[in-house]
């Protein structure tokens, strides 16, 4: 199983990503966040390296996704692709490619930040899953 589903929340929004391995899981979560925010645009872009450290995999998911949001908001860019090289217990490395968000782009809801609320990363017999909620 490879993909994500949007989770309902009274005020905010969350996602549950699924993947056969943990690096794909981070890629699915990235794609989910960007599609929820309407900032995923297929095509070519400029690569930006991401390298985050946290105390566990849950913390890594939050830091990784916050890094994507920071790049989007500070540089006003859309995300074109994501590639995760390594996810250990305390470090995640990889890159996204970005390109300028086109003027008047039909973005969706603004995601302010990634929260630790109900955060979970699980390695199950059927694959990996991650649950994360966003403040919108």
């Amino acid at each position: 199983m490879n993909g994500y589903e949007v989770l309902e929340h009274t005020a905010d929004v969350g996602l549950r990503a699924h993947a056969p391995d943990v690096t794909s899981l981070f890629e699915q979560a990235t794609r989910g966040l960007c599609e929820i925010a309407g900032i995923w645009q297929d095509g070519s872009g400029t690569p930006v390296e991401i390298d985050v450290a946290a105390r566990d995999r849950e913390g890594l998911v939050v830091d990784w996704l916050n890094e994507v949001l920071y790049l989007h908001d500070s540089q006003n860019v859309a995300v074109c692709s994501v590639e995760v090289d390594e996810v250990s217990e305390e470090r995640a490395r990889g890159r996204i490619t970005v390109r300028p968000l086109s003027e008047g782009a039909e973005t969706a809801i603004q995601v302010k930040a990634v929260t630790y609320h109900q955060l979970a990363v699980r390695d199950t017999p059927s694959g990996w899953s991650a649950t994360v909620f966003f403040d919108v």
Partner: protein
Amino acid sequence: MSKTRRIDEYEWELPIGFVDGMRVPGRVFASRELFDKALADRAAEQVANVATLPGIVGASFAMPDIHWGYGFPIGGVAATDPASDGVLSPGGVGFDIGCGVRLVRTDLTQADLDDSLRELVHALGNQVPRGVGGRGRLPIQGSDIDRVLTEGVAYAIERGAGWSEDGQSCEDLGTLPDADASQVSERAKERGRGQLGSLGAGNHFLEIQIVDAIRERSAAELLGLVEGQVCVMIHSGSRGVGHQTCTDYLRSIDRLGNAFGYAPPDRQLACVPLNHELAESYRGAMNACGNFALANRQVLMDGVRAAFESVFQSSARDLGMQLVYDVSHNLAKLEEHSIDGTPRPVCVHRKGATRAFGPSHPDLPERFRSTGQPVLIPGSMGTSSFVLTGTDAAATKSFSSTCHGAGRAMSRTKAKKQMSGQELRKQLESAGIALARTRWKLLSEEAPYAYKDAEDVVAACEGAGLSRVVARLRPVGVVKG
């Protein structure tokens, strides 16, 4: 799980034991109907979770607009005592640090809008940058960002955005004390530089409103409000600088793990003792972001005045466009409150709740000694908003706090399924509400039916004794973020 208990018509208790580890009970101010809604989503559980915070005093409170948040419920109020190892929790302020509301009055009446409402809404839409990635009206160069973070409204006024007296009509006179720009990361500053004077997205908005009922005449008079008058309400916050600052400090605190012997029931409740250097740094950064939010609403108001000037071909002064008041509803403040009969400084977290000092509070400016602090409550798009004032009773009931808005009742997905953006547009327009051009397909995420009725919320606040209703305003023009 222990059972909830009704204390009186507008007050409910979640007893110790409602969830494990509670140090104080939970107290929810709400009518039965609003309380049932709080129990139906996970908000009541979140009130109880907050009651586990070290050093919490009195109770974990929730206002009638309570709904499911992340960590803290939206509408949550918690005071922690530095003398009892009390903690500071960035999640108890939220990502939109200093988010708040301001109200601008005019001498215009609805009749003055008859021929110009659409033009005015269009002009406001053009003057006020909004949406995702919106660039602000007042770009900031280099280290000037530190001045915004330190001076708040005063900086915007010095740059020509506003009148010298505007600060007098803001909570904290437009500048939060104890702000420390050096505790705000370069990343946060980078996000803030281009966004001063931008509305943002989501539930942020700007509305042209008509005062349609006055309930407390003397307070209304003091605030310059009369029936039939045109006003403008602005709801916005600290934009990317606040979001990044909360993210930065949550990460730093999260990395400490359970170093202080407290394992929060929700990781978003991560916190540090108030006397820890990280708490001191966060407090300085949070106040700095609060100043950015104040300056942001000031620059937005400057755009509102400019739009009115262009449409009515008259100066904003001649149009009587004084600032009525400005409040923040996402902050933690060190305030003196009576704890077990003794006045003590405590840190009051308000996450989607508004400070509401009563007339006798010593920190209230002279001007409001007869009325109490003004409080501004935005309704949902297309429904009434309110001006309230604080009561002395709120000091002992809720650490001088009241509600902050209508409060969501339905997820965005459900709201969109119920009606399309275009359908809602037609419905609002047929009700006489003009809408500035927006991303229509997102409009119904913020539909009135996705929120509780603000009328019920402010009635519950009044019933509970937390605040009094001064005026009701109905919308005639909406510029959605």
